[in-house]
């Protein structure tokens, strides 16, 4: 969660630019509104137990801007993602992208979640071109979490076979 001071600064900047309260154009969406929504009402901020068998953890960073993103998924016995949590330290677009990512993965199967693309995230949030890499980071975080989960399942299988 962003600190209050940063949040206040961002909001005041948006108000100053007149974008926070400006009317929406009929043809294009106002990305600020959607991104700000994720600031003010963050969904799924937090952590899951990374040592749990059915939890996959994805940890990614963007060297160019220094953003760090953690996304975790909890999968049930049927291979369906029942919970997801994130923690992102970076710009507003990165926070919004990962917040949206957790919303998108919930309810999907592990295979379905693999098909989530950064373009879906960018489109939904109406990210400007300069912030497209934030949605890329979120897609990579999802993939990293799924990959971690897969690795754990494979290990479990191997151990299970060894015991049998």
């Amino acid at each position, binding site marked *: 969660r962003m600190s209050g001071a940063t949040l206040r600064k961002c909001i005041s900047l948006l108000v100053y630019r007149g974008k926070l309260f400006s009317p929406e154009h009929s043809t294009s969406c106002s990305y600020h509104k959607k991104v700000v929504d994720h600031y003010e009402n963050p969904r799924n901020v937090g952590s899951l137990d990374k040592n749990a068998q059915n939890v996959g953890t994805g940890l*990614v*960073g*963007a*060297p*160019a801007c220094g953003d760090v993103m*953690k996304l975790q998924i909890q999968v049930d016995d049927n291979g369906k993602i029942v919970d997801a949590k994130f*923690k992102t330290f970076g710009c507003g677009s990165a926070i919004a992208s990962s917040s949206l990512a957790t919303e998108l993965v919930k309810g999907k199967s592990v295979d379905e979640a693999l098909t989530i693309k950064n373009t879906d995230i960018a489109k939904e949030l109406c990210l400007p071109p300069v912030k497209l890499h934030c949605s*890329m980071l979120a897609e990579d975080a999802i993939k990293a979490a799924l990959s971690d989960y897969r690795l754990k399942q494979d290990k479990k299988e191997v151990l299970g076979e060894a015991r049998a």
Partner: protein
Amino acid sequence: MFMIQVPRVSMLRVNTLRVLCRTGTLLQTGWSLKDRQSLSRAVTCALQCCVSTDSSSIRSLQQQFVPQDRGDKRDVRVRHLCTAQVCLTCWNCQHPLKQKPAFFCESCEVVQPPPEDTSYFSILECDCTFTLDTLKLQKKYLQLQRLLHPDNFSQKSEREQGYSESQSALVNKAYETLLKPLSRGLYMLELQGLNIEEGTDSAVNSELLMELMEINEALDAVETPQEANEIGQDTKGKLADLTEQIDTALNKGELQTAKALLTKMKYFANIEEKVKEKLSSFM
């Protein structure tokens, strides 16, 4: 014997035509782009040799024979073709500009347009090294701004005002970049053609990312300025270490190592910023 074939004769003035004939410049319509470029230089040189030329005829000739597909608009500058290298001249008095970069003409003291292809290090008269005397840098910066700042040019011509603005902005940019170790290091890599790509860093640096996550989460959870300060001090220490390591790597010419270290520095510099924000939120 050279043959001269000039298209659109009516656009050229008669004395300019005479210049071409006199210096025996060869023109052909089927020449390659490379030839045309050297031709435009030859034409410019030819015009230099002649006494009676004025800027409008030079301009019309440049329009005729300089490749149009360049797309960039440049000031029409008259160049002396010295035997050593192409020297720039003052736009006002045509005195050669020997200094590089030349902010002012040595002869008429008029401000010059900002230098092209000059590194920030030479603009601020510093050696191109990672360790920098920031006090010396600041002194040079202030000295330059005292001379170049647009406030000093309010009574001068529009052209001079424009040049002073661009020069002043360039000096600002150079100073900002060279002042902080991170931007300085990144700029030095850029000069060598190495950039930090937009992309993701996951498996490669998972230990570092975990460490960064932990520090960020701890910072998020602090409840007193003292706790925030502790993290701040710790981060400062890490940044100082990294600065040393980067210096070593750059001195040895180990660019990839320097790039990896600068990436790490970026993450910690962000944390340092967040510490400052956290501390100000307590006030």
